């Protein structure tokens, strides 16, 4: 290249005849796909002022940002506001994601109640339900819209084998709402089920509720469920501790209110666990005191569950069927429930009315407390449940199957 000639580019043209004398019009920048050189944006004060929030959040286009910043140099009012809004952005923090420790609720309420004893206390048999519904509600608070439709499989043991029913997180809350509704009805509160079920059993009511809904349940079911659970606690508190004997019909059987509230606490925990699994959240067992009350309910329900299985031909006949008079000592099994909330029970094997007798203990089973609850919820099969056992194998098998048959939808 001839650097001596500043116009060398023309002189060096290897084939000057190919180059047009008059250059063709240059292609428009707009057609090249290259970024356009941006002319400074001229915007009026009113427009710039409206942009200040977006500017402070760095949510404007580069041209708008430049125009705003240019304007701030000359407009005191806008400059003041801009500064103020920028500072405000510094106050935005991600919401506190710290989950409240569920045990804090119990501690705070107890501290309050010891400082000023309540005139209308919540009966002790209703506090597990109060605590478990609060815990589940806190979990629901944290889950997103889409997670309400996450699939959940309700599992239970139908007497012979594990069975299940597919639903969603919202469907599970609808299930809790309708079955808690059995207690509501027994207390004279509104029935959440508008179309009556064929039979007033938990499963039939749930199916009826799901059927009656025109759309699959959504997160909107949370409000009615929570309102009803608060109302139940409030109503039993007004009814007083003595109301615990009031019968709550479940269709095929009935439970006294105090046991029914424990049963609902248990179901709330079990299904909260199902939901937590479905949305991949951790979920802890209930407070030991509450867990103990739930295990105790299961242990107390075992004798009649055993009898029902026998009558259905699903369990071996007792040693002296129908002959052990109520109140007489009979063969007994000792479940030893380990872990927080555990303890020892003695289950009469021959008739629900028979007296459990340590002298006539024929078998012993050691089980973890949460494991026992999983068994009674139908989430663990009876064959897989027992950790340690000794004594009459058949009695143990019958009792474990009876525990599993306590579960229902």
């Amino acid at each position, binding site marked *: 290249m001839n650097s001596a000639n500043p116009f060398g580019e023309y002189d060096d043209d290897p084939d000057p005849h190919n180059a047009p004398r008059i250059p063709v019009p240059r292609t428009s920048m707009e057609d090249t796909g290259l970024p356009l050189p941006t002319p400074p944006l001229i915007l009026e004060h009113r427009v710039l002022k*409206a*942009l*200040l*929030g*977006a500017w*402070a*959040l760095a*949510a*404007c*286009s580069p041209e708008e940002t430049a125009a705003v910043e240019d304007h701030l140099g000359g407009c005191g009012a806008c400059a003041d506001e801009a500064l*103020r*809004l920028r*500072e*405000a*952005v510094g*106050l*935005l*923090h*991600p*919401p*506190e994601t*710290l989950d*409240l*420790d569920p045990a*804090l*609720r119990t*501690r*705070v*309420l107890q*501290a*309050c*109640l010891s*400082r*000023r*004893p*309540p*005139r*209308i*206390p*919540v009966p002790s048999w209703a506090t597990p339900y*109060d605590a478990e519904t*609060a815990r589940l*509600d806190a979990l629901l*608070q944290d889950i997103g819209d889409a997670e309400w439709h996450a699939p959940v499989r309700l599992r239970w043991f139908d007497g012979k084998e594990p069975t299940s029913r597919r639903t969603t997180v919202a469907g599970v809350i609808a299930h809790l709402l309708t079955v808690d509704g059995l207690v509501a009805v027994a207390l004279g509160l*509104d029935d*959440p089920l508008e179309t009556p079920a064929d039979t007033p059993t938990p499963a039939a009511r749930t199916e009826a509720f799901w059927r009656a809904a025109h759309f699959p349940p959504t997160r909107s079911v949370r*409000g*009615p469920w929570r*309102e009803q659970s*608060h109302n139940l*606690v*409030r109503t039993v*508190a007004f009814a007083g501790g003595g109301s615990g004997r009031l019968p709550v019909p479940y269709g095929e059987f009935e439970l006294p209110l105090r046991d029914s509230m424990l049963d609902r606490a248990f179901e709330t925990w079990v299904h909260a666990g199902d939901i937590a699994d479905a949305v991949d959240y951790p979920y802890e067992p209930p407070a030991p005191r509450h867990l103990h009350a739930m295990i105790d309910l299961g242990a107390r329900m075992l004798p009649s569950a055993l009898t029902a299985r026998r009558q259905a031909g699903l369990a071996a006949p007792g040693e002296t069927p129908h002959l052990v008079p109520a109140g007489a000592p009979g063969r007994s099994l000792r479940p030893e429930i380990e872990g927080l909330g555990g303890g020892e029970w003695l289950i009469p094997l021959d008739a629900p009315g028979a007296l459990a007798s340590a002298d006539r203990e024929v078998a012993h089973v050691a089980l973890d407390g949460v494991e026992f609850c999983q068994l009674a919820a139908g989430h663990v099969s009876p064959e897989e449940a027992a950790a340690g056992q000794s004594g009459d194998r058949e009695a143990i098998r019958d009792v474990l199957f009876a525990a599993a048959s306590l579960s229902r939808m």
Partner: protein
Amino acid sequence: MARRDTPPRWDRKMQQRLARGEAAALGELYDRFASLVHGLAHRVLGDEQAADGITREVFAHVWENPESYDPKQGPLRSWVATLTHRLAVQRLRTTETAALAQDGTDDTDELERKVRRASVAARADYIVTSMPTPLRTALELAYFQRRDYRQTAADLGVTADEARRRLRLGLQLLSTAHDAAPSGTPPEQGGTR
């Protein structure tokens, strides 16, 4: 079963139930406000246990003195927030003063700065949780999701003008956290923010 208990009515009934000594009402009060109370206390004190302690104090105060809330003065929610704010700032001041005394220094300016920073941060949290949802959602999209205002508008299905308006208004509300109490939020005595 729509929510029949709109706030003023719910507030009044809650106060009556607490005054009557209904333990179940205390549970419901906790369920409604515990995360607000604990969150604010944690923002001021930056410590889980201290926040637990303030939560206990706040609910004990409301349970023991339900008549000190006057529904005519404003929502129970802002009254509870004010109480939390006051107790938490008090606690911060006490612990910080004690810490200074232990160091043998008395840098009260630094103490005041710290208390003010914590106090403003907690007020800002309260403002964000109480502002109208459309404003909060716009701020969340623009700030946490890094959406520009046109994208924010598209996400919300509003005009670009409206998105700009919401962002500016949201920040204007938030900036009042810097205003010294009692004009800032939450108000001193259950005022009407």
